[in-house]
């Protein structure tokens, strides 16, 4: 058994071998803050006098305006202005409003396999899909990393998951992710490094892996990591990354005894019902629930592949709910324009938002009113997450979300998807 997370951690800490539970200081390759957590990190750097150390380390600093994109009030606008100034002064890499969600921008050619990356946002865990060790931290720690280039880590105990089989019609990586949440529960992967292996991985492209890694944090995981393989290489090449031979060593080799096993062929469309992401049910158990709004977007499912899945279903139809579509990045939006997906969506009645987090964050663009119901492709549905506590958020795949938009209620997507794919 060889944990990829521990391998990466040991390389970055200079320790020959790191065991689960060890507390080690490790060099950080990249640190990311967004417009919510970045403003607080900046305040901490100022208050402690540590601002003068920023930019003196090898660690690259990324600042992304995605939660308030564009600014929705004076405070957010002021935070943006401060962070722009800071970024210019210290040579940080800034992605201003409209570039998209940090977790999408960073996997579009910035994150490299084998790196150790931290971000002041819990969904930083997403980059494990590219065989890197990435995890969420707070603002104080982001400030600390900016000033020192390193951070303490408690080495996580691995939790291996074997993937076999292939998805049936209308079943996607989101359903796999929700299945895992259901199995784990909200503390089932607490502090663990969830590591995937098995022949079924060839049926998970990097889009799919990003969805899975992203959502595993809802079970408490520290990192959710996929091995480096042909899929990873193809993805990196597409984004202009020069591939290095040594990445071939970023493997996860495990015997079956030590792991849980998921057969993709046996999965069905799933939906997470409020009040928390791990409250996962079969779509049939919620069939007929009236829906006011559908949101397709977020760092979980706002990529081109997800938006194409939506477009396939709504093409030539008129939606019965409000449908908000927010591309995860500017590149995604450009591709939607180039491949005429945007036209299909707008003609079906979709509202297109600025690339960013949108209503998933609950402070901006598309929040719900009292008692309203949203089917969302995002990752969280706590009471009050995207509107008043009486509003309800159901988390589902882009197919399930798309079908809810055209029927006006939670619906088993399979007959609709089958019809479209057979055309």
């Amino acid at each position: 058994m060889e944990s990829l997370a521990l391998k990466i951690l040991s390389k970055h800490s200079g320790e020959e071998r790191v065991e689960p539970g060890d507390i080690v200081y490790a060099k950080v390759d990249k640190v990311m803050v967004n417009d919510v957590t970045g403003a607080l990190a900046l305040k901490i750097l100022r208050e402690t006098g540590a601002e003068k150390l920023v930019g003196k380390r090898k660690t690259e600093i990324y600042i992304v305006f995605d939660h308030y994109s564009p600014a929705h009030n004076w405070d957010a606008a002021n935070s943006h202005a401060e962070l722009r100034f800071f970024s210019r002064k210290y040579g940080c890499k800034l992605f201003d409003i409209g570039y998209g969600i940090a977790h999408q921008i960073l996997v579009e050619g910035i994150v490299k396999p084998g790196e150790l990356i931290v971000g002041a946002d819990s969904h930083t865990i997403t980059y494990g899909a590219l065989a890197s060790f990435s995890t969420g931290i707070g603002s104080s720690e982001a400030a600390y990393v900016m000033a020192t280039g390193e951070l303490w880590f408690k080495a996580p105990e691995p939790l291996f998951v074997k993937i076999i089989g292939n998805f049936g019609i209308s079943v996607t990586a989101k359903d796999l992710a929700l299945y895992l949440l259901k199995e784990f529960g909200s503390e089932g992967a607490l502090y663990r490094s969830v590591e995937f292996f098995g022949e079924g991985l060839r049926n998970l492209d990097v889009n799919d892996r990003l969805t899975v890694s992203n959502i595993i944090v809802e079970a408490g995981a520290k990192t959710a990591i996929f091995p480096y393989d042909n899929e990873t290489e193809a993805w990196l090449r597409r984004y202009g990354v020069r591939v290095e031979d040594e990445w071939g060593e970023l493997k996860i080799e495990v015997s079956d005894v030590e792991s849980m096993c998921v057969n993709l062929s046996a999965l069905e469309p799933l939906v997470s019902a409020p009040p928390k992401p791990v409250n996962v049910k079969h779509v049939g158990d919620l069939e007929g629930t009236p829906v006011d709004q559908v949101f397709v977007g977020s760092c979980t499912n706002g990529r081109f592949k997800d938006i194409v899945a939506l477009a396939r279903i709504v093409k030539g139809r008129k939606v019965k709910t409000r449908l908000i579509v927010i591309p995860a990045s500017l590149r995604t939006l450009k591709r939607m324009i180039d491949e005429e997906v945007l036209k299909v969506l707008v003609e079906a009645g979709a509202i297109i938002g600025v690339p960013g987090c949108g209503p998933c964050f609950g402070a901006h663009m598309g929040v719900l009113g009292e008692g309203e119901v949203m089917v969302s492709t995002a990752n969280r549905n706590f009471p009050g997450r995207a509107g008043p506590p009486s509003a309800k958020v159901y988390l589902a795949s882009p197919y399930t979300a798309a079908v809810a938009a055209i029927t006006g209620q939670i619906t088993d997507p399979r007959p609709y998807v089958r019809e479209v794919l057979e055309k």
Partner: protein
Amino acid sequence: MNLEGYVIIVGDSVDTDTIIPARYLHKSDPEWLAQHVFEDSFEIREKISKTPKPIAIIAGKGFGYGSSREHAVLALKAAGVSFIIAESFHRIFYRNAINNGLVVIEGNIRDYVREGDLVKINLSEGVITIPRTNKHVRFKPLPRKLLEILEIGGLKGFLRKIATEEH
């Protein structure tokens, strides 16, 4: 380090969206955050307003579930929370708490306390005391490295030290 607080009891998987809703995160002023702590969770909010300060939160599994927002810790501290004892914590919240000098202890004492009870802790010896029943419960002391962070006043203390030493 010795601390004491008056008990409020909460359940499992208390998430950071519930502690401080996203719509208040555009300001990081602790007083502002404290005004809105648990705003959407009427029951917990009531307990916080009725219980004498400092407060000891006694929780179940997975306290601090969800978002990385450090504002959750700032809000709890400013609302008068002195320490939290939970069966388990979600990892980013745990780190944020230590980094801001908010004491977090893994343990289950829900069966031994009532709402409003006084609870005392001795951090270096790893003992929780409930004076009403004269009950003592041991807990695993925090790792040395984390105690150092608490003693220096959180990660900010470390940053100040580094900033002074390095020019």
